[in-house]
Structure formats: C-alpha cells, structure tokens
C-alpha cells in the first residue's frame, strides 16, 4: 500500500516538474544571438581605459603626472612625458597600456587629476597573441595632436594674460586704496 502511494507521489511530483518545463517552452528566449544582435552594455561598463576628449581642448588633457601609473595595482600603464614649449604642464609622448594585465579596477580613473581617463566602449576585443593587447592610447589622438597643442598654448596664453591683468588690477586697487588712506589721513 505504501509503495503505491509512494509511486503516486513520485509521479505527481514528476508531472508537476514537467509542467514547469513545458510552460517554459512557450516563453520568449532570453538569449541574445550575439554576432547578429548585440547586447546593450551598461553606461558604466568597465573596459580597456582610453584617453577621453575634453571639449575645450579637442583632445585629451593628460598632463603626464604619472599618478595612474603609480596607483595601478597591475602595473599595466607606462607613460613618458615631456615639457612642451609654451605649456605649463607636461604632455605625454608615449602612453602604453597592457590590457592583458588590467583588472578593470578603475583606480586609475579615480586618481587622474584632469579626469581624462575613461573606459572604451568596445567590449568584444579578442586576439591571438599577447601583443594584441598592448594598446597605444595616444594612437587615436596623433592626428590632432598639433592642433591640440595650439589650443593648449592659446589657453595657456589667455590664462597668463588673465593672471597679468588680475595682478595689474590688484596693484592699481592697492595703489588707490593707499591714496585714499593718505587722503583720509590728510583730512
């Protein structure tokens, strides 16, 4: 008798389970047919780092301060930079990323003083050798580097002028104040 009830219970639970799977037959597929369809990636998706454009410069604004190189736990960034004529800050000459080592931790983005690091949007890079993942981050900015330098010099010149003007104004204001003081004393 017990056996019959066991068999009955077993069958019922099996049929119930099958009911679930049969219902699933008629549900929409949840997968994305990758090469034909592309997944929508999140806005903050982490990926290889890139130098992002700053609107006022028309190029990246890396000042080769090496902060990102220093903080990177995986040692995957190497930068060399030099002082260019007419600029207050350095400018990178090389900016290499070994993406194979990168852990996408985002620490380099956090420390960048000019906020010029961002994540690339390309999420499906693949390669056959290690060298395929050595990225030159300056590559995309090579063509516009001269103009960017021009803009930067222009900005720097304007800043200088402003500074001069402010100093002049300060000096004048001081002189005036002094005159007034003198006048006050006389009166």
């Amino acid at each position: 008798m017990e056996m019959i009830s066991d068999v009955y219970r077993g069958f019922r639970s099996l049929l119930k389970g099958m009911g679930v799977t049969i219902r699933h037959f008629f549900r929409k597929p949840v997968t994305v047919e990758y090469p034909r369809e592309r997944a929508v990636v999140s806005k903050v998706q982490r990926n290889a780092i890139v130098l992002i454009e700053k609107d006022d410069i028309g190029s990246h604004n890396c000042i080769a301060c090496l902060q990102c190189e220093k903080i990177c736990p995986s040692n995957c960034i190497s930068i060399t930079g030099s002082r260019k004529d007419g600029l207050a800050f350095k400018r990178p000459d090389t900016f290499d990323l070994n993406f194979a080592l990168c852990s996408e931790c985002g620490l380099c983005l956090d420390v960048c003083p000019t906020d010029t690091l961002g994540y690339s949007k390309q999420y499906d890079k693949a390669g056959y050798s290690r060298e395929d993942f050595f990225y030159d981050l300056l590559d995309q900015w090579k063509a516009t580097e001269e103009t960017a330098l021009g803009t930067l010099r222009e900005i720097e010149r304007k800043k200088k002028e402003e500074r001069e003007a402010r100093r002049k104004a300060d000096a004048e204001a001081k002189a005036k104040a002094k005159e007034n003081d003198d006048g006050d004393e006389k009166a």
Partner: protein
Amino acid sequence: MPELIRVGRDEDRDTYHLNMGPQHPSTHGVLRLRLHLKGEVILSADPIVGYSHRAHEKMAENRNYIQFLPNTSRMDYLSGMIYNVGYCQAIEKIIGLEVPERAEYIRVICCELNRISSHLLWYGTLLMDLGGFTPFLYCFEDRERILDILDLVSGSRLTYCYGRFGGVTEDVDDKFLSETLAFCKHLRNRLPEYDDLVTNNVIFQNRCKGIGHIDKKTCHEFAVTGPCQRAAGEKRDVRRDEPYGIYDRFDFKVPTRTGGDCFDRFMVRVEEISESLSIVEQAISKLPVGPVMAPKVPRKIAPAKGEYYFAVESARGHFGMYIVSNGTEIPERMHFRTPSFSNLATMRRVLKGSTISDTVAILGSIDIVLPEIDR
C-alpha cells in the same frame, strides 16, 4: 600525513584509492579528493586543496591598502561584491571614515543581490551534479539578470571593484532601482516554480535527505559557519549577531533547520534567497538621497600600528579579515578567514561511510568555492 600519490588497488585487493579531481566537474573548481574505498563505500576521504593558490595574502604585503581592492573580489568570485564591500568597511572602521547614508544602502542592495546570485549559482550547480540539467538553466537565467543589474552600477559582471574607501564608485539611477524591483518580483514568482520543479521532486528529496550530516558538534569543532551551520540548528549570522554597516536597520529572519543534512542545507539557502529579496526591497524603499562618496577621503591610508579583525557574512559564511598594520601605507600582514575552508575541512569526517554518488551531493550542498579556499 597520508601518502599522496598512492592510487589504484591495494595489495589486499579489497580496498582501493581513487582520486576525485582536481579536474572533476562536480568538485566546483580544482579540488582533489583522495578517497579510500571499499567497493563504493568511502573508508576515508582527504580533501587536498591548493591548486588555485594565487598568493593574495602575500600580494597584500606588497601593495598599499587601496591597491588591494581588486584582489578582494577575486578571492570568492561568486560573492565578490560582499568581499569587496566588506574589505572597504573594514578599512573604514579602522581609519574612522564616515560613509554617506545613500552609499550604505546601495552597498546593502548590491551585496544582497550578490548573495542571491551566488545562491542561484549554487542551486543550479548542485542540481546539475545530481543529474538535473534543466534547473541549472533556469537558475542561470535568473542569475544573469542579477549580473546585468549589477553591471549597471559597478561596470563589471563578476569580479566587482565597486566599493571604495568612503563609498562606492557610481550612484544608482532609476533604471537600476526599477529593474531591481522588477527582478525581486520576478524571482518571488519564480521560487514556487523552483519548488515544483526541484524541492518537491521525490527523486531529489530521496537523494538529499539523510546524507552528509554536519551536526552542531562538528560545526563547533571545525568552525563551520554560514548556511551549513544554520542547517545544523545554530542561529548564527554575522549580519544579525554583530551588525556591520546598516544591517541592524533591516528586518530579516535567519533561517535555520535542525537536521544538518544535505536537504536542510538546501532549504536554508532557498529561504535565504527570499530573505535577501526582502532586504533588497526594504533598502530600496528607504533609500535616502545624497552623495555616495565621503567628502574627505585621505589620499594616504595608513592605519595606526596594531592588529585589526573585521568580519562580514558572505554567501558561504563568516568571512573575516585580519589586518596587521605597522603604521605605514603597506600592510604588514593580511590574513583572510574564508568560510569554505572550514566547511570543507569537515569532509574528512562527514564523507566517511557514504558512497561516491552521495559524495557529489554532499560536496555540492556545502557550496565550496575553491579560489576562496586557496586564495
């Protein structure tokens, strides 16, 4: 110390040694079980670990506290968010850094989602070990949604580096909140379906009930924590006993069972999924506005000389961080107390007398993650 290499049949031709793993699909990673068998019955079992040792603790001694952040989530890659955030909370407590309210709530939401995703993966793989492939696919479908949701804020799907000392990297947006709420609703509807498919299934119950007993005494002797301990009837949960972060503000049950067998561990985790769902919903309903990063985070993190211990509840149990500082930016020593290590250690006692086919179920039910054991 047992001999390590002896495999095959013994001289008396009655008993023999068998290596299960290290590349065995049901050992969830690279675990090697050295079994001494008589027929199908296990006379003794030695879990041998260390195949995915990456020296995370040693690495910690060669980098500063901030640079260790990406390592945390790679220890236990299935509950990386909990480890990552737990490490941040430890350092914040040590250096006395206040975390904005909003960041605290976001952390809770993300950690609990991560716990659910970890439990779902365990659910699927346990069932696959037992020979059921369909539930595995359903669990992965749901887990995938969590990964997508966490991707929205943290930018990663598995090895998160979302926490920072003093907050989190990104603020959550409406899309994240609405998707999370939608997911909670979806999973709540889904759980009865899982019950129909798995929990009430007679074959499953017969395979899980009455095997792999881990009783209270074993729990004490081996320092077993997490769902395995709760299944043995101990009501222990770091979130409840020593609330860290803002866990004291939430209303949640700590599910327990008394038997301590595979089925009890299974039921505890299933109940934990719904408890975590309720925590997520509570956190979203209370989410305050404000910044997600403390205004003043010191650039140099150099805790005062001394020894510190901080623990959080990971998906597998009590995860403790023991940090020794010598007053500089580089830690003197960091040691991690990971739950799976102790839970796996019981196997020597628990597996004795069971059969090979039960071994698969027992190993699956204690939910070990090998990279977390080896670190």
